[in-house]
């Protein structure tokens, strides 16, 4: 669905991305993971044709994005920004309906089908009850859900999310990732950048890890998120625990003798550990 090949980009003399190559398949929920300043946002911008890279190519559905006009691009890929300032008090349903823009007829009037798709997207995110509320009066977490619903209503095969869980409380973080899993299961490829290694480990099929030297690894979290990898990224700041094959990252200072893991979010058929 997404193929990034040998992508290189610099801001002035500062090389931000160097020879980045990876692929994301249909239905894959992939985390873009790495410390601050390693080029996650720049990589997004290049994949969305907002920045033209110095060299390398990005293909979506086999098509080189350099040859895709904006409207066609918007039918292939949706983008969920981190925080969204909205000066005009649109309602939630209006915001979600905006996701239909690339599919509208030449008079840009949404039809019954567009409204149905938007309603379904709100249902999926559990925000139907907010449909008539003004978007700019919602909490940060609710706004995030609306933006994701808008991306789903866009009905693209590929969705990019920039730090989707950053503004959410713990329960909503779990809901969000489970929602993303459900969307991916229906065949959508998702690339979400995140700072939380546990989210990568608990919820994602695969991860692309960036550090200052470039692409560190790409693969399933179970294989990629090793102690060696975490040491390389964060020094010795955290420990990786392995519980029945599931990796959990805890602070390196945590005392294993007195710590009891009671439960963790059950994406894998609700396994509980004691």
């Amino acid at each position, binding site marked *: 669905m997404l193929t990034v090949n040998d992508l290189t980009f610099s801001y*002035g*003399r500062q090389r931000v991305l160097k020879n980045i190559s990876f692929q994301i398949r249909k239905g894959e929920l992939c985390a873009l993971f790495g410390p601050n300043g390693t080029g996650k946002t720049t990589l997004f911008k290049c994949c969305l044709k907002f920045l033209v890279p110095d060299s390398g190519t990005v293909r979506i559905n086999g098509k080189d994005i350099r040859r895709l006009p904006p409207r066609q691009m918007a039918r292939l890929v949706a983008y969920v920004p981190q925080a*969204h*300032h909205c000066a005009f008090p649109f309602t939630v349903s209006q915001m979600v309906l905006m996701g239909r823009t690339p599919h509208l007829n030449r008079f840009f009037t949404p039809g019954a089908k567009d409204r149905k798709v938007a309603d379904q997207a709100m249902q999926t995110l559990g925000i139907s009850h907010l449909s008539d509320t003004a978007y700019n009066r919602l909490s940060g977490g609710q706004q995030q859900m609306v933006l994701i619903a808008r991306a789903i209503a866009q009905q693209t095969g590929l969705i990019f999310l920039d730090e989707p869980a950053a503004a959410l409380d713990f329960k909503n973080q779990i809901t969000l990732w489970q929602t993303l899993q459900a969307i991916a299961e229906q065949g959508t490829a998702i690339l979400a950048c995140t700072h939380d290694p546990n989210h990568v480990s608990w919820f994602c099929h695969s991860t692309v890890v960036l550090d200052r030297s470039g692409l560190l690894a790409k693969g399933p979290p179970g294989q990629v998120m090793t102690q060696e990898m975490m040491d390389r990224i964060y020094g010795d700041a955290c420990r990786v625990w392995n519980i029945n094959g599931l990796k959990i990252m805890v602070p390196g200072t945590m005392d294993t003798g007195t710590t009891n893991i009671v439960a963790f979010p059950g994406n894998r058929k609700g396994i509980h550990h004691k």
Partner: protein
Amino acid sequence: MRYMEIDWNKAWAEETELWNQSAGKPCQGFWEDKNSAEVFAQKDIRQHKKRLEKTLSLLELTPDMRVLDIGAGPGNLAIPMAKKTAWVTTVEPSPGMNAVLDDQIAENRITNITTIRAAWEEVDITLLTPPYDLVVASLSLGMPDLKGTIEKMNQVCSGQVALFWHAGIPEWEDMPRALWPDIFAMPYHGGPKSDIIFQLLYRMGIYPDVKVFSNDFCEIFESMDSAVSFYARRFQILSPEHQPIVEAYLKEHCKKDDRGLVHEFNHIIMKLSWQLGDSGCSSTQGEKR
């Protein structure tokens, strides 16, 4: 407000800081590697020819002059100045710009330029060979401490100090000024202008000559994608969600011709200059009101 209580050096520093924030990074970091610097140098010579000629004509160069060029960039002023004067010393921190300057010096077989690779604030003046007959800074006043910058210039000069800087709102600020309130709910700050320099100089006891000229130039893009990308690089604060807004703005304000997509700008430049040892410049006598 009592105007005499305004600290103009602080005003300059604050506007510089807001400028950096508005773009998402400092302006000085924009053209840093050699490739970008080469693009800038070629563009500068092609599209800024009129400005460079005007700047040179206002400097009244003579063959026996020794010149200090602060923020020399790729040498678009330094090279022609070296041909008309005895010696030019350039001060430029960017490695990319210095690399292009080296090429220019070699290509033009220039033997009377010394290059100092540092920011003016960091230059150890004992390494210089003052006094210079002319100290010039052309569109290169990105330093937050302008007063310190000017005092240091005066220290190494026995003739004229000349600053070239923007007056009014240059047209390249039109886009961020139009879009930022909607996108980021904040106004765009395009950096301090010549009025602050004049106020600061006056307070320092320097009463400068002021000359004004207007200039126009353009950015040329091969496609809308490269135009959007150019501004996305310049303003790192922009994110992909702003693409339609930026594109709509550019569609309305660029024109298409056989060169590609052309974005034209007009701006006004002020030359503020003073003569050391002149009665109009009493910088050695401390602050005046």
